């Protein structure tokens, strides 16, 4: 290894000084930057790719599921106004546009195509970051930092505690490259027997794989959404599809990332051909493009004050320091082989090991038949009530660093827990909470660990965030009446 000293902060020209520095411009990072900017903090947002929105736009994951919270609700309102939303499917291009406008209005500075290369750290305090620009490396100094990089790059570079992948071999779950097909007659597909009787193509694919028509990329269709704002009902629909999968993934290794991009593109072309030849309504379809960002579901995560677990999802746990809620159950994509695992191996409160299944069932890859007890989540939660679980503020706070918060898919969780919290809208809600918390910690002059969570929750609720106030009493909000909140939320839950 060559000792390279050029990153010494004294030798790097300074780009600027800010109150809040957000690294990563995905759903979480954009949420954090918007929240901090609107709260009056001087904010800068660093993004590695060419647009904001991360996987929701660049990765064509235009399927914003989960509860819509403050900024998410606003995003949906704005998308609806420009015909960029169909049910819950967004148009990725309009989504980018709306984010650009929102960021500009909030007075946040953005640097696109700007990777993070290092951090400047003093003990447990991050003083600044080093970015790579066209003119060379530059330093940005800040008071509070949000790591919304997805892979905990900032915390990792700062020497903070992190973990990668699953516990036993640090492998991450399957990664997907989404693709878009044009020239689709969606009406014909929607009324076809295949869609009505086998909507996830499970039996259909089983047969096709057995006959050798298609390699075993995955044993079911993950999702297909109609892209809004296209000519409708004339055989010119556009759909985005999540199907391609790479297995045995290590997304923090660049050689493996490259492998997955190349493999993913190859798979997308095979799938587009297969779909064109075999699926009703797709006779005239063509591959428009594949995602410019690989759908990494889970990779490096911070080690935080609280490690959110699959059991928290299984029991629908509530926390007093809730900052976001979700209802998405375990949703792990096969690590080494095809299939969707809507279950995980957990330890019940009595110490016994058990395979615990999602409310929706076991998914398309069943647990091994090894005599371990099988529990269905419906036995653990009260199904007569609204099901949801809380994401605690502590899961955003790294154990040692004093002025950094994580948001998005890299918060402190185990893998089954992460498989529920990684969804688009949930990430945005976490980002909004992290940005608001940074602004609050500056106002009160405390480090992020000591932020008054009650105050943060009241601020979030003021901004129409959904932290479960419509479902239950939260201690810090005890005097308010939020019984009508879920009715007021136009795009509500879902």
């Amino acid at each position, binding site marked *: 290894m060559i000792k390279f000293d050029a990153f010494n902060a004294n030798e790097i020209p300074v780009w600027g000084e800010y109150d809040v520095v957000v690294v990563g411009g995905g759903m979480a990072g954009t949420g954090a930057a918007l929240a901090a900017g609107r709260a009056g903090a001087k904010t800068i947002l660093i993004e590695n790719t060419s647009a904001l929105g991360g996987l929701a736009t660049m990765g064509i994951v235009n399927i914003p599921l989960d509860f819509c919270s403050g900024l998410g609700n606003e995003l949906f309102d704005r998308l609806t106004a420009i015909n960029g939303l169909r*049910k819950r*499917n967004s148009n990725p291009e309009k989504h980018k546009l709306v984010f650009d406008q929102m960021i500009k209005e909030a007075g946040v500075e953005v640097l696109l195509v700007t990777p993070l290369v290092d951090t400047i750290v003093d003990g447990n305090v991050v003083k600044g970051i080093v970015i790579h620009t066209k003119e060379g490396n530059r330093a940005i100094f800040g008071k509070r930092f949000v790591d919304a990089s997805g892979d905990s790059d900032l915390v990792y570079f700062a020497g903070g505690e992190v973990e990668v992948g699953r516990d036993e071999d640090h492998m991450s779950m399957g990664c997907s490259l989404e693709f878009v097909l044009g020239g689709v007659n969606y009406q014909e597909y929607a009324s076809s027997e295949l869609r009505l009787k086998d*909507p996830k193509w499970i039996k259909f694919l089983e047969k096709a794989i057995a006959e050798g028509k298609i390699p075993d990329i995955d044993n079911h269709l993950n999702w297909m959404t109609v892209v809004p704002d296209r000519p409708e009902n004339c055989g010119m629909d556009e759909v985005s599809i999540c199907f391609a999968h790479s297995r045995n993934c290590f997304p923090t290794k660049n050689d493996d990332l490259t492998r997955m991009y190349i493999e993913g593109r190859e798979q997308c072309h095979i799938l587009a051909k297969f779909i064109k030849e075999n699926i009703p309504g797709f006779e005239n379809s063509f591959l428009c493009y594949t995602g410019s960002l690989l759908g990494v579901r889970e990779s490096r995560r911070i080690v935080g004050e609280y490690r959110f677990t699959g059991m928290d999802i299984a029991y629908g746990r509530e926390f007093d320091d809730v900052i976001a809620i979700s209802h998405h159950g375990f949703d792990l994509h096969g690590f080494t082989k095809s299939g969707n695992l809507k279950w995980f191996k957990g330890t019940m409160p009595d110490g016994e090991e058990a395979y615990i299944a999602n409310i*929706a069932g076991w998914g398309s890859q069943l647990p091994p038949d090894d005599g371990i007890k099988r529990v269905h989540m419906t036995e653990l939660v009260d199904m007569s009530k609204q099901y949801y679980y809380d994401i605690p503020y502590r899961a955003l706070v790294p154990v040692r660093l004093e002025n950094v918060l994580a948001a998005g898919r890299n918060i402190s969780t185990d893998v089954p827990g992460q498989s529920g919290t990684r969804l688009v809208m949930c990430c945005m809600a976490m980002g909004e909470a992290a940005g608001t918390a940074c602004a609050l910690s500056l106002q009160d002059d405390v480090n992020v660990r000591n932020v008054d969570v009650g105050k943060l929750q009241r601020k979030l609720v003021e901004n129409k965030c959904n932290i479960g106030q419509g479902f239950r009493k939260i201690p810090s909000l005890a005097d308010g009446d939020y019984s009508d909140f879920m009715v007021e939320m136009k795009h*509500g839950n879902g």
Partner: protein
Amino acid sequence: MANKIKYRVEGGCVVCMTCLYQCPVKAISLIEDVSAVIDSDKCVGCGRCYNNCQPEAIVPYEVEEWERKL
């Protein structure tokens, strides 16, 4: 008073459960792993499930006059 329009799951449900959490009257349940079903007696026709169903598996239907009086 019952609404004139109600909703049912016609086919193509991918069990994402969005409607399940969306329904204000808890009219929706699951046939495990297969499909969501809407209890027509409980359905108040608010349309939240329909408006949020990604695979467009939920369709509206008109409730007959005699049925509404029941």
